């Protein structure tokens, strides 16, 4: 059953899009990530122009993250104050990112920057996660105690000005690091069409030392705000949000996110992280290694949007 998308102006298989939304939503609920990094490559592979894919899936990420946040919020696992500070940075970052992306498209370098971003960020993060979670699994199998998380937070976190209390996360730190992290994630969100959870979650755990209990819910809360801003900016500036495409992805996505959030309690954390790490690495390599392969045709047509 094919459906013609009014903004993307291509005909695609509708049940396939719903299924894609479902799978990505499930992964999103399971790991507390937006899952956009998985969706963009598939949408582009299906023939949807990259600019429309990136903008419309940002809208899908809003829905699947919202669906999960309500589930996490009931358990008190969302630090709204931390999420708000991260999101404030995220808004600044996404405005910069959407404008930067326009310039890159005029220069014809958008594809390259997207490919290299995927390779760099997914490669590094997937690799680190894989090493870390495999060694944790091995320690557990050998019956060794889990490595005690180093509770000493880096001193610079305390040296910076503008300190704020985050009672939910039991933190008293400067707002500058979360603002900076949020801004960085906002740029990624606009350029890669992702929520940025795969950067945000490790950054919150390892840099800000946010307790594990609130990490996932807070990350999702920040992702909603950033991707909502990206959606509005992409629609307003570039007219690249396809509501029909987004709706199909959303219907699958919200159901998947609920199932994922429920399933998360049934799996062991390390095993889940190994699976996620492998997925992240594979997507990064698949998207990124293309730039090293000689193209079949030395020329490429660039879609005329955003001029």
């Amino acid at each position: 059953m094919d459906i013609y998308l009014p903004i993307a102006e291509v005909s695609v298989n509708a049940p396939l899009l719903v299924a894609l939304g479902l799978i990505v939503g499930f992964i999103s609920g399971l790991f507390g990530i937006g899952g956009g990094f998985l969706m963009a490559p598939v949408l582009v592979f299906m023939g949807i122009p990259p600019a429309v894919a990136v903008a419309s899936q940002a809208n899908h990420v809003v829905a699947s993250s919202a669906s999960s946040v309500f589930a996490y919020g009931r358990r008190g696992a969302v630090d709204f104050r931390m999420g708000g500070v991260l999101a404030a940075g995220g808004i600044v970052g996404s405005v910069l990112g959407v404008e930067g992306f326009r310039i890159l498209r005029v220069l014809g370098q958008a594809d390259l920057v997207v490919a290299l971003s995927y390779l760099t960020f997914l490669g590094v993060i997937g690799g680190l996660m894989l090493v870390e979670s495999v060694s944790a699994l091995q320690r557990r199998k050998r019956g060794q105690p889990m490595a005690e998380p180093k509770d000493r937070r880096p001193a610079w976190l305390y040296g910076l000005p503008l300190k704020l209390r985050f009672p939910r996360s039991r933190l008293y730190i400067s707002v500058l690091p979360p603002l900076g992290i949020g801004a960085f994630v906002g740029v990624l969100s606009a350029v890669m069409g992702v929520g940025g959870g795969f950067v945000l979650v490790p950054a919150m755990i390892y840099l800000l030392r946010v307790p594990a209990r609130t990490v996932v819910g807070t990350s999702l809360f920040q992702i909603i705000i950033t991707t909502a801003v990206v959606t509005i900016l992409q629609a307003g500036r570039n007219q690249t949000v396809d509501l029909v495409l987004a709706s199909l992805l959303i219907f699958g996505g919200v159901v998947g996110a609920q199932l994922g959030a429920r399933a998360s309690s049934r799996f062991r954390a390390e095993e889940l992280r190994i699976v996620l790490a492998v997925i992240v690495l594979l997507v990064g390599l698949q998207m990124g290694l293309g730039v090293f392969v000689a193209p079949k045709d030395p020329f490429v047509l660039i879609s005329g949007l955003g001029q």
Partner: protein
Amino acid sequence: MDYVPATAHLSAALTSTQVEVTSSYHGETIVLYGAVFSPRDQPCDVVVVVRGPEQPIRIARKVQVAGLWLNHRPAVFQGAPGFYTVSSARPLKAIAAPGVLQRLGIGIEHLSFQTPEAKPAKPPLKLGPRLVGIHGRDYQDYRQAVVRLKQAERLYDQNEAGVAFVDKGLFRAQIALPSSAPIGLYEAKIYLFQSGHPIQVRRRMLNVQKVGLERAVYVFAHSRPWTYGIIAVLFAVATGYGAAVIFRRS
């Protein structure tokens, strides 16, 4: 005594003049019928040219820098149709001389692409498109690449068996519009050639347009883009919330 026209005469019609792009649209085949009245039974040739709305083309050459394949600054061509097919019953060069075809703009090699160089120069912005001079060495490379890539997408086509004579003087041509063909007004020109000269031409218009939901969404997205974006976000949040509520109860 019946009046017999001295020269051959052509008439033609499209089986439909509207292509409605609905949510189930996945391209369309346009059928054109026509008849040639040739009183003295001189051999005639029919050439059907279908031209879609103009679309600026941006094309970049890939270059290898330090192991990476990068895009050069894209070049922009104006005046190229978004869709172009030429159908005939035999090879074009057997129908008329290249000069005649060029003058009429028949054949992919005779499409005219303009580069921005021909226009008043813009301020020399670093962000501006790459300039490919019409006489430059590059021009032919770029032009051939545009044609090659458009042909691969089935947007440009030259079919030397696209016009079929189904009966004496009665011909039929089929033109396949892929779903990626642009929305807008198409022009079909039907030429009648005799001994290498065009003796008559008929023009028929074809309108490819979005209807219903497809049109409503597209118009809304372009007329009120910010409102559209806000509604998209509200819809997403509401759906997410709805799913969370439904799943809590179950």
